[in-house]
């Protein structure tokens, strides 16, 4: 009787939430889960590691430095920055078929594309074809924003200015004659870069868009002449340019130059002697850099990568070892309440 009269306006709601009684899953790190879990993960990792390792072993890689530091190298003569339009040669021979498709990379080391100021030195609007930014490039491009005559530089900035400009031609020596190995330069950049991120201004001919601008000082040709043969590979959507503009994370990097997918070489480079003709333009010795070329094929998990396989094996083994340790400790020291 009394109870009914009581005012209960302030009574808190009796819900699971307000009373902190929400149904909950309360997992425990019990031995029954942790130890088998470790074993399972360990074994799985060892398995993946082995697979990766084998896959990596099956990949063929041919890597040649052509910086020309050693005097014996043919490119030694070009390593002097004062030498212009130098061409050198790099010979190599394959004893077996280099299975295809073969990818041809150039590599640079001790090269800081990841430097902040370097990476920031570009104009995204300009590169997406906004003509306003042709006239007034982003100040981040400085000192490659305007040239000495105050003409805007297009494409502006250090990143574009330092575009890699060595060119390569690969010949197979067949019976003393040089047979050109055809390179495929299409689609070496990311699809998104080529189709969305970088756009040429919608002006035809493209050259007109560049009126009143100058080319980056290191460039030998303006942007609209990067590939005059193929308008869809010219200007800002030039594949080589795109590859260069996607800057590397680490100071040693390689970038895709060409694919070898055509003609006699579709299934790979046959055994034999090859000669790589290099138009040596890009100076790296001044900062202790190295240039190299790399031929490689890929497997299901990408290019050759010993690290990943070994790391998997190591982590997997550690898991197994830890599970053993835990098992021993558990067997010896488990506290009595666990008996039930």
């Amino acid at each position, binding site marked *: 009787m009394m109870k009914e009269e009581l005012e209960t306006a302030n009574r808190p709601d009796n819900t699971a939430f307000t009373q902190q009684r929400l149904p909950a899953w309360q997992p425990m790190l019990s031995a029954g889960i942790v130890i088998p879990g470790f074993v399972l*993960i360990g074994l799985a990792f060892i398995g993946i590691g082995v697979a990766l390792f084998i896959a990596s072993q099956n990949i063929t890689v041919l890597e040649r430095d052509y910086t020309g530091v050693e005097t014996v190298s043919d490119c030694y003569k070009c390593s002097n920055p004062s030498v212009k339009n130098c061409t050198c040669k790099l010979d190599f021979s394959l004893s077996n078929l280099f299975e295809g498709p073969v990818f041809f990379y150039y590599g640079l080391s001790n090269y800081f594309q990841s430097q902040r100021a370097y990476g920031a030195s570009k104009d995204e609007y300009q590169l997406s074809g906004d003509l306003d930014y042709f006239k007034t490039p982003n100040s981040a491009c400085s000192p*490659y924003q305007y040239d000495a005559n105050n003409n805007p530089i297009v494409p502006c900035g250090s990143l574009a200015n*330092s575009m890699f400009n060595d060119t390569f031609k690969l010949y197979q020596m067949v019976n003393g004659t040089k047979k050109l190995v055809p390179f495929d330069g299409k689609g070496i950049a990311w699809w998104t870069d080529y189709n969305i991120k970088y756009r040429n201004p919608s002006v035809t001919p493209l050259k007109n868009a560049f009126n009143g601008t100058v080319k980056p000082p290191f460039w030998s040709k303006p942007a609209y002449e990067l590939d005059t043969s193929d308008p869809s590979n010219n200007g800002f959507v030039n594949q080589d340019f795109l590859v260069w503009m996607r800057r590397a994370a680490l100071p040693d990097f*390689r970038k895709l130059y060409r694919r070898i997918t055509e003609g006699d070489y579709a299934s790979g480079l046959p055994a034999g002697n090859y000669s790589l003709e290099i138009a040596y333009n890009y100076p790296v010795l001044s*900062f202790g850099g190295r240039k190299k070329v790399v031929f490689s094929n*890929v497997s299901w998990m990408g290019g050759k990568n010993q690290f990943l396989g070994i790391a998997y094996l190591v*982590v997997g083994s550690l898991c197994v070892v830890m599970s053993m340790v835990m098992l021993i400790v558990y067997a010896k020291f488990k506290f009595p*309440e666990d008996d039930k």
Partner: protein
Amino acid sequence: MAEKWLWMLMPWRGCWSSRGKRDGQEEERHVRANDRDYNDKFPYADNHIKTSKYNVFTFLPINLFEQFQRVANTYFLVLLILQLIPEISSLSWVTTTVPLVLVLVITAVKDATDDYFRYKSDQQVNNRQSQVLRGNLQNEKWMNVCVGDIVKLENNQFVAADTLLLSSSEPYGLCYIETAELDGETNLKVRQALTVTSDLGADIAKLADFNGEVICEPPNNKLDRFTGTLYWRDNKYPLDNEKMLLRGCVLRNTDWCFGMVIFAGLQTKLMQNCGRTKFKRTSIDKLMNTLVLWIFGFLVCMGVILAIGNTIWEQKVGRSFSVYLLWDEPIRNNNVVFSGFLTFWSYIIILNTMVPISLYLSVEVIRLGHSYFINWDRKMYYIQRDTPAEARTTTLNEELGQVEFIFSDKTGTLTQNIMVFNKCSINGKSYGDVYDEFGHKVEITERTACVDFSFNPLSDRKFRFHDSSLVEAVKIEEPSVQEFFRLLALCHTVMPEEKNEGDLVYQAQSPDEGALVTAARNFGFVFRSRTPETVTLYEMGTAVNYQLLAILDFNNVRKRMSVIVRNPAGHIKLYCKGADTIIFDRLDPSNQDLMNTTSEHLYEFAGEGLRTLALAYKDLDENVLEEWMKRLLYASTVIENREEGLADLYEEIETGLMLLGATAVEDKLQEGVPETIACLTLANIKIWVLTGDKLETAMNIGYSCNMLRDDMSEVFIISGHTSSEVLQQLRSAKEHILGLSRVSSTADVEKTDEFSDDSVFEETIIAEYALIINGHSLAHALEPDLEQVLLETACLCKTVICCRVTPMQKAQVVELVKTNKMAVTLAIGDGANDVSMIKTAHIGVGISGQEGMQAVLASDYSFAQFRYLQRLLLVHGRWSYFRMCNFLFYFFYKNFAFTVVHFWFGFFCGFSAQTVYDQWFITLFNIVYTSLPVLAMGLFDQDVNEANSHRFPSLYRPGQLNLLFNKRQFFLCTLQGMGTSFLLFFIPYGAFCLAVSDDGSHISDQQAFAVTIATSLVIVVSIQIGLDTYYWTAVNHVFVWGSLAVYFAILFAMHSDGLFSIFPSHFPFIGTGRNCLTQKSVWLVIMLTTVACVMPGLAVRFLKTDLYPTLTDKVRCLQQASRKLRPQEQNLRRVRRTSSRRSAYAFSHQQGYGELITSGKNMKVTASTAGPSPPLSPSSPGRVHNSRSLIESTLKRKGETPVACVSAEAYGTSGTSEGNTRTQQTLMD
């Protein structure tokens, strides 16, 4: 109801403005009644109260100004400014702006809402109606009441401002007020107008002509003090606090009264009194601030290292690399050091996420959540009073999990302050126990059948008694039983009030007395009315008029009181009640046998913790009395040694008494107090009782709530009157403890860690000591040279009780422990006298719904019952602490893992402050991707459920020792975070060096690298929080999985074509997600990184639980195991009190009431006594004193009160009457 009103009266949070605007110049206040023009010359505050801080226009600037006073906000503002400098800006300003704006907006919204409610409550108060005399009486809003106005108050109305009482409906210009809102006392207080003004009566014309001028003190916050003078008609009249009605009081039992406003609005004593609450910080808060400073130091160190790295790099590499990266102007001048300097700032910007702004926000949110859980807890809701628990401060929750000392008030906190007539012994027969048919004693519970008092129409329905044999004895008119209850009905100083026929209310000055008179009433001896010379009883239904000849009043020395009455038959009798030892000394020798039996009963009663009194009577001869009365009359008129003379006379007549029996009154403990105390003791919390009560009463309660036990090794009582005496007593107690405990200490240590609360319980029993210290000794012991000894001794004891403590001493004791023990203290109390200690302690808890609101308003937490403290500490506090610690551990871990990656990357990007991640990721990581799971953990996690938290109080221990989050833990979590960041960077580094996608194109670019690390990071921290969460509610699932989903959703959205086409420069990561996360090798890297980051921590945790399980681990294990079987409730051993203590006159009685009654001063006007004061009669010696001598004698008694009260000097100067005495006495309870 009063509580709700109070919210409007005194919006506690906004009191800052009263201090800010305080007018320091005012030295004297001149107020002239009914003279607006004159009063307006002075800058007196009007009665408009404004506690809100902002208005619509000032909100933004003021609020922003306040917010940027917080260090964290300013820090982020500085970062933001740094980011705007292009040379060093390594991150877009967006990354700091978004979180900062978010934090500012959330805080601003909260402040605005708070302020709006303050405004609303201000409005409500300001718009309340009162009657103001403006020519004639008119209704006026409170805010329009001005100084000098004459206002009319009616019964049960709140007083609108501090007013001078002019006249009232009661005789002598008396009026009654309840000051619950001011000082927490519920008993009525009397205020009396000056005779000259009370003659104005209710005559509007006269009142309107009243032009007296009051010159008084400037506004101050002393509630019990007022000095001023009224100048009227060329006369001066002194004014004191007894003539003031303060804002916040309620008029009671008085039809109307008129008053003149002296202080209004913010200058009223109430508003002046609501001082700014000291901002309390938790120890975790302080630790967090230290850690943030450390992190900041660490940040600077990393910045310096990287800056040096940058200098070296620029010198060695960058200079040559300038072929491709032409240096900026300053560096071109070969100044690599300057480049390093710039880099330092750039890195400070990048690495600032080690102390993310969301840390502070999340901590606030979690605390707020915990506070809501306290507010919502039905197990802390008291249905009888409809009071839920309330967390009034939202910033202290985790400290509740670390309490080591509890300081508790007694009355109203441990006890209900309700006295219940429980047992009695009449003529050698004990009543009160219930026996079953086999003659066994039955435990009395709620359900035990009550005695039916329906035969008595005047009985009090609420009275409960279980032993029907006593009623039978009354009904068969057993003379000794009748005499027993007649005594109870006659010998007291209670005032009856009969609102309706038969609806009797007793105004008792002490609840004990009320209980006794109520008992007599129910057993058929109804005390119905009294005049100064008569007492009317209804004895078994018939009215009997007794002539009251004398009241031999109570005092602390006499420890008894007597009345001398003449019954209708003309017999004169003296009835006496008092402390048993005192009464027994004055008994007639013929009572020896009865005395022995009664004595036995008294032992029995005392053993049950009841307060006992012995009752006796004496038949007096008419001639003897007449002669005695003459001497009494003479004695009461002498000036010198009047008190002693009276005491001797009393002593003389109170001899040769005939014993009637004894009463036993239960000072009702609040529900579950002994159990709560036992449980909290098991949790290793020391409970000190600080009470204003007498030593006897305090000990009595100590025994009844099991803090004192007979099996304690020793109970030390410190009651020295000088410093050296106190020191001596403390020293010897300490030596005694140390000397004895050395023997058993080794055994104790081993037992401490054992996994059983029984062993802990026994351990506490083995070496239990108690220290009881009296107020006057405490005053000495708290002196600087003694306090250390006091502290050391007290901390060796299990129980410490301080009695006769003044409010200030309570605060001093708390302060002593707080500063010297480095322990978290909690003070709990219910009355105004506890406010100081509540404010001093780390955590103040107020018992709400008891006496007023003062304690609650000052408190950080409030609830209705002491027993809820157990739940507040052991469940809410422990969880809060556990959650907060886990939260911080994880939070620092996550941010180190997130941020330090930049450090590693520094070595590969020429220390150029290049960020590893997308700037959007940096912006969103803390506020979107990882905030909700950790919030869910901080809000909902439970390591051990609530039942087990109660069952194993030792689980509370880690909080007290601060084990869950301390500097060591911080190092561990930063180490773990750095380890994770190391793996997060170097595994992808190893894999990416030569990474090529499966179509041969290269993926080792900056953006793919960023996405890989970011994705690994989000997965790793999500798994980590999964492992850290013990209690996966649906919310946790949603948040954890949701965060991952949101991460990928936002990732792909940010990398989508659409966004890029709108803002090309803000979303440069277009396509990275697609190109990168479709690669098997990238996922292999992410998986490897995840496992490598998580496994070691998991293994360490598993091994730790296996090798060194904590109690929590064990309890969790038990909990898991008993999930299927119902956990058997293991009740705490309920210890029956086994005390054999004798209670003395442990009543909260004061002297002075006898006089008051016989003088007729406090008599309500009844039909029979209406009109001027009754003629003096020589037969009533008390009335020899006129009102003046009453004040004098009260004043004199003040001098003998042994304990100095804080405001004692205030009483000395102002005129004192019974109201003040009472205030002081109750304050000390």
